[in-house]
């Protein structure tokens, strides 16, 4: 566009001069079209913008040689100034038509006729309109082209991004270590990844040829298909289950399956997505571990763990349901083990297990090995009262056939304890204890039989059992104490010493005598620490008396030794240790050993006693005359005292005494004295008895006539009384 030299609005232009008139035209023009423009210019700015265009129109009008073509450019310039509204063109044409000649007509070098001016003006309008229209068309097309291109660019960017994302997800899908499958809501499988195909046996077609809801397996958990239906109906977003499938080779694939519902943009259910993890191996391993944890490695029978699970189930309260339990212990199995060796013992157990297994094949029946040679057979149901007897019978007859082992026939016998009852009343531990006790009753009655549990027998045994289990803690808790029963010189009635007698102050049963718990302590081995404690305590007490009562002569202390203690290898060392630490003279201690404990004693057993005797410790033969009194043996024994059993003195309680008893006692005393043994009598209850025994030559005595067993200070008092 050519812009005349005098150009943009000189403010000092004469209002009525040519420049002023041109400005007037531009003002009118801008007022007319400003409302229909979209420019962000202000109206004064817009007017300034139109001024060069007005000048150009004026120039065209006055050109010496008329050429309307530049008007084309003015039309285009309007479009460039964003006057794109059609109103802008019609308003412009109106302004040119009405005012161009009026304000710019006389401004040029060429004088034009009115007619010429009108013709030129009309021609200018034609070309201006053409220029406007062409520019608008080009601009519109260019803008449409530009926006379409931008839309395409944006779309291709988005597609690239989408493609990249898709590629990523495709890779995730393809290479995931878990199986992924997508199906529609009818169950048609649309996509599966390689992992899933491999899990199902490697044939893609095998997987795709079945709808999701056809993958039913007998071991499906009951709610799987309920969840599935809820999901495809859109009522559930996802579910996770453990689910088995058949592979194409018929083997079973176990999976951890998670199914999610995929919805479309409007939220309508569209697809189902399955993620599955192959747990077959893990499950097998678990099953194997579970089997190993619940079965006995030697016999393959269920073990204690599994048995207790079943028993617990059988005992849980269920209307009308009962249980029957047979507790079997082989008779004399230890002897077989000892004589034929453990390997043979094991083979015997395997054979017994097989036979037992065949005895309990009905539903609700099981056989288990609890350990060692202890087996149990359990039966459950409404009729166990009868069935359990039949079961026990089958067990005993199954054992009746001898077992061939290493070419020899072994007769196997067993004792069975039976417990039977309704469910929901007892705990597994109670039932098993009762069965155990009952089995021992069967064994005690000679074995090769069964016994039926009864409450009273149980109660007795349970007390025994209770005491046995309470023994170890009783020692720790200091529940034992010692009473002392004086030993008196028959010659003058003075106190010679005392026998230490252990008592148990049981928290529930009160004070218990040694007959109640010493056999139990013997059985469990607790007798060793208990005996040591008694020895220590008694020796300490004797030493205490020794220090206080030197004038009354040395007080002796008698302590009982049980058979187990006698066999204990540390007997001598411990006794020496106790004596040395207390400072008591060995000669003040007398250890009492029962006659029965020494029956058949060889030199090995007697050796420790000899050692003790050589040190000066007295050994007394307790309860003499009750066992098989081998008088010939007596001289071999390192004893220095005979304690005559109370049964010999009972006949002397009344006057006149039984003459036979008198003769026997007299004979024994005479014999003892000739072997240089002192004689002590027990159970002296009357003065007449005491007198008789003194006349018969007995040395010392103990019994209620003198004093009952009592606290150590009682002895103290007696000794003081003697001294007076």
């Amino acid at each position, binding site marked *: 566009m050519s812009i005349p030299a005098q150009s943009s609005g000189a403010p000092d232009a004469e209002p009525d001069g040519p420049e002023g008139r041109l400005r007037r035209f531009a003002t009118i023009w801008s007022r007319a079209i400003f409302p229909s*423009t979209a420019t962000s210019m*202000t109206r*004064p700015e817009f007017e300034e913008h139109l001024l060069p265009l007005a000048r150009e129109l004026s120039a065209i009008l006055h050109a010496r040689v008329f050429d309307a073509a530049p008007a084309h450019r003015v039309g285009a310039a309007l479009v460039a100034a*964003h006057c794109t509204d059609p109103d802008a063109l019609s308003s412009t044409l109106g302004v040119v038509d009405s005012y161009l000649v009026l304000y710019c007509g006389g401004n040029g070098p060429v004088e034009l006729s009115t007619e010429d001016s009108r013709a030129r003006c009309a021609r200018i309008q034609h070309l201006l309109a053409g220029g406007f229209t062409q520019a608008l068309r080009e601009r519109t097309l260019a803008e449409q082209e*530009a*926006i379409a291109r931008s839309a395409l660019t*944006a779309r291709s960017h*988005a597609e690239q991004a989408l493609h990249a994302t898709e590629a990523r997800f495709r890779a995730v899908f393809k290479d995931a270590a878990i199986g992924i499958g997508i199906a529609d809501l009818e169950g048609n499988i649309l996509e599966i990844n390689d992992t899933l195909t491999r899990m199902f046996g490697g044939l893609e077609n095998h997987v795709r040829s079945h709808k999701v809801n056809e993958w039913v397996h007998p071991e499906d958990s009951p709610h799987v298909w309920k969840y599935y239906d809820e999901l495809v109906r859109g009522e559930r977003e996802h579910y996770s289950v453990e689910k088995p499938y058949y592979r194409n080779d018929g083997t079973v694939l176990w999976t951890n399956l998670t199914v999610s519902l995929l919805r479309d943009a409007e939220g309508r259910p569209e697809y189902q997505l399955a993620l599955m993890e192959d747990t077959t191996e893990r499950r097998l391993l678990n099953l194997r571990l579970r089997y190993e944890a619940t079965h006995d490695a030697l016999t393959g029978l269920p073990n204690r763990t599994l048995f207790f699970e079943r028993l617990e189930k059988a005992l849980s309260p269920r209307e009308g349901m009962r249980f029957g339990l047979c507790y079997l212990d082989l008779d004399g199995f230890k002897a077989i083990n000892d004589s034929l060796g453990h390997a043979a013992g094991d083979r015997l157990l395997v054979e017994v297990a097989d036979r037992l297994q065949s005895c309990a094949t009905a539903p609700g029946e099981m056989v288990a090995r609890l350990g060692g040679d202890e087996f149990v057979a359990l039966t459950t149901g409404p009729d166990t009262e009868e069935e359990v007897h039949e079961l026990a019978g089958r067990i005993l007859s199954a054992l009746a056939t001898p077992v061939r082992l290493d070419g020899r026939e072994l007769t196997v016998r067993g004792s069975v304890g039976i417990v039977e009852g309704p469910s929901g009343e007892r705990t597994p531990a109670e039932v098993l204890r009762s069965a155990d006790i009952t089995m021992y009753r069967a064994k005690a009655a000679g074995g090769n039989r069964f016994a039926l549990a009864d409450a009273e027998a149980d109660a007795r045994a349970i007390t025994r059992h209770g005491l046995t289990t309470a023994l170890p803690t009783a020692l720790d808790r200091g529940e034992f104490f010692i009473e002392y029963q004086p030993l008196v010189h028959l010659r003058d009635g003075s106190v010679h010493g005392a026998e230490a007698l252990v008592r148990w102050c049981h928290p529930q049963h009160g004070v218990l005598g040694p007959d109640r718990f010493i056999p139990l302590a013997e059985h469990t081995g607790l007798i060793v620490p208990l005996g040591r404690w008694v020895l220590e305590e008694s020796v300490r007490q004797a030493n205490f008396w020794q220090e206080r009562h030197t004038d009354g002569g040395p007080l002796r202390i008698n302590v009982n030794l049980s058979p187990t203690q006698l066999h204990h290898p540390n007997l001598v060392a411990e006794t020496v240790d106790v004596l040395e630490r207390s400072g008591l003279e060995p000669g003040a201690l007398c250890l009492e050993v029962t006659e029965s404990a020494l029956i058949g004693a060889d030199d090995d057993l007697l050796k420790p006693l000899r050692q003790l005797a050589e040190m000066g410790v007295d050994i007394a033969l307790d309860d003499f005359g009750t066992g098989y009194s081998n008088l010939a043996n007596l001289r071999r024994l390192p004893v220095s005292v005979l304690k005559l059993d109370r049964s010999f003195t009972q006949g002397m309680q009344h006057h006149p005494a039984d003459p036979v008893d008198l003769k026997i006692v007299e004979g024994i005393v005479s014999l003892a004295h000739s072997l240089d043994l002192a004689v002590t009598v027990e159970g002296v209850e009357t003065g007449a008895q005491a007198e008789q025994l003194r006349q018969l030559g007995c040395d010392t005595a103990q019994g209620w006539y003198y004093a009952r067993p009592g606290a150590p200070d009682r002895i103290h008092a007696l000794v003081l009384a003697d001294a007076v």
Partner: protein
Amino acid sequence: MERPAWAPQGIDISTPSVSRMYDFYLGGSHNFEVDREAARKAMEFMPGLPKVMQANRAFMRRAVKYAVSSGVNQFLDIGSGIPTFGNVHEVAQAADPEARIAYVDHDPVAVAHSQVVLEGNDRAVIAAADLRKPQEILEHPEVRGLLDLDKPVALLLVAVLHFIEDADEPYAAVAELREALAPGSLLVLTHASYEGIPLTQEVAGGTVGVYRTIRNPLVMRSRKEISRFFEGFEMVEPGLVAMPEWRPESAESLAQEDPFTYSGFAGVGRTA
């Protein structure tokens, strides 16, 4: 269902875009028939919509000039739309050739078009981001690469906040942007409102309905609600006013304004 973050936004030119509708109101042809159809429907209720848009652009032009004259020559224009003419960079760089402008829009077509328009201008960039996630804008490499946030910036939220529903926390977004601005920065804002429209609310509500049907709800806020966007800013004279009333070029031009240009509010604030 909401589009997850990892899924790229698809381009759907079969739904109207507010950027292209805006272009159509201004007489441009950067639009498709769907855009024109929606814009024509909106104009059935408010025939003066093009006047509103023109007034909006005229205000923006005055505000940009004001910013440059008061020494701020960095611009962050969020919701810039389809660049047509009289854009911020044209106005600002005409006043100060050193002026730098970062445009932000979340419409991918607008972004692609802006890239073409801005090609060769090394002081103007376009970033694809959303006003609802101000951190994305502030951390956008194009924005960070061009603007020095330690120096004052004119933040332009021109005709954009009325497209953010309250659930998307527009006030929090503005506050977050304000926190990132250096002292002396400006907030240039226009916002639609029922106040000032020379129509009843029922009739003007028809236009709001059109925007709702194209899933770009237009949120009309009261002057009081709009003024809350300036919390933390000191209002520049004459405060929050109708668009033509904000520092008009002359009393004469003000007198000639179309009544529709008084729809909504405009204002400029400055951070302390």
